């Protein structure tokens, strides 16, 4: 699994972090601009929930 982040859509809600604390990495202000090239299998559920929680639809999950 990969996660593509559209950084221009991110508004710094940090909801991805709330649902995927072990997956998503944000800057000091809560913005996410970091694609994740490989989500470890045990964290895939966190990654999915984090992407679904984004009000700006900034995160796209690419399943293997």
């Amino acid at each position, binding site marked *: 699994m990969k996660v593509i982040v559209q950084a221009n859509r991110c*508004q*710094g*809600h*940090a909801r991805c*972090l*709330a649902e995927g*604390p072990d997956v998503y990495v*944000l800057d000091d*202000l*809560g913005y996410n601009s970091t694609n994740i090239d490989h989500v470890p299998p045990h964290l895939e559920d966190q990654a999915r929930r984090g992407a679904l929680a984004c009000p700006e639809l900034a995160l796209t999950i690419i399943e293997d």
Partner: protein
Amino acid sequence: MLRGERDTTAFPDLDRLDVRWVLGTRAVSLDVGLNRVLADDGQAYGYDVLVLAPGGRARTLPGLEIGSGLHVLRTIDDALSLRESIRTSGRLIVIGAGFIGCEIAASARQIGSNVDLIEALPAPIVRVLGPRAASKVADLHEAHGVRLHAGAAVAEIVRGPEGRVRGVRLGDGSLVDGNDVVVGIGIFPSVDWLAESGVELQDGIVCDSSGRTSVPNVFALGDAAQWWHDLVGKHRRVEHWTTTADQAAVVAATIVQDQTEAPAELHAAPYFWSDQYDVKIQGIGFIDPSDHVDELSIRDRTVFLYSRDGVVRGVVGFSIPGAVMRTKPLIERGAPVTEVFDLLTA
């Protein structure tokens, strides 16, 4: 939208849902005995399961007609009309300093408009956030040049020839000049059409924690729905749009699941945000100003913790989203406020 950075609200991929859309058609009554909705196109729409999401309409001041310089902000047409007026007149009066009023004021200032913000209570958003957080919001608007009239009653909307708005007369007799007034004082849930339906109503549609109404095959969600929330032990109408999305997932799961399973329930703490100037105010949980409030300063940002009997119920932060969001699971499991304090100050 108001600042002119967007012009449309586009929803992606709606066609892929394979849903039959019946647009431009208003539901006028509900018959829960015959399981059908009557609409203003003369049709009766039958159902096995019904989901009500009627939303609300903007409140205005008694006896006032929208138009001729008097605005509300609820629909995209409202937004486009208000934007055009702000651009043309460069001067705006906002009545009501709740979230909507404050966001309008901030956006109007950011595109160079003069702004008067009139609020009956002593500070902006004070009914929701309590006095300490509200005074931060007041400072923010005054620092950006908004003329804030707090604790001010509106005596009348003053109109010129042909009914055009000329200003707002305050309770102390003073006149605030301006040709455009926007009223942001909340919504009424659009439930009048359900009055005779037998679905229980109480400032909205009363639902359990799965969104089920008093009629078993009728659900409701969104701004008009009063869901039961275990976190506060009350029915609450939550007007935040992430809550509607959370509710939709619960209702959908409840409808499609096997009848023998326990229903899905909403456990997600409500979330809101409000962008005003360069500040992002975020709140999680049930913010109640009558709860105990602690104020923390973290990396020069302010966070308010709302707790009752030592249990955290809500958190509000000013431009510190990462820290605020980490508290969400703690709010959802009713953690001691000391644990939130430790997390934030670690």
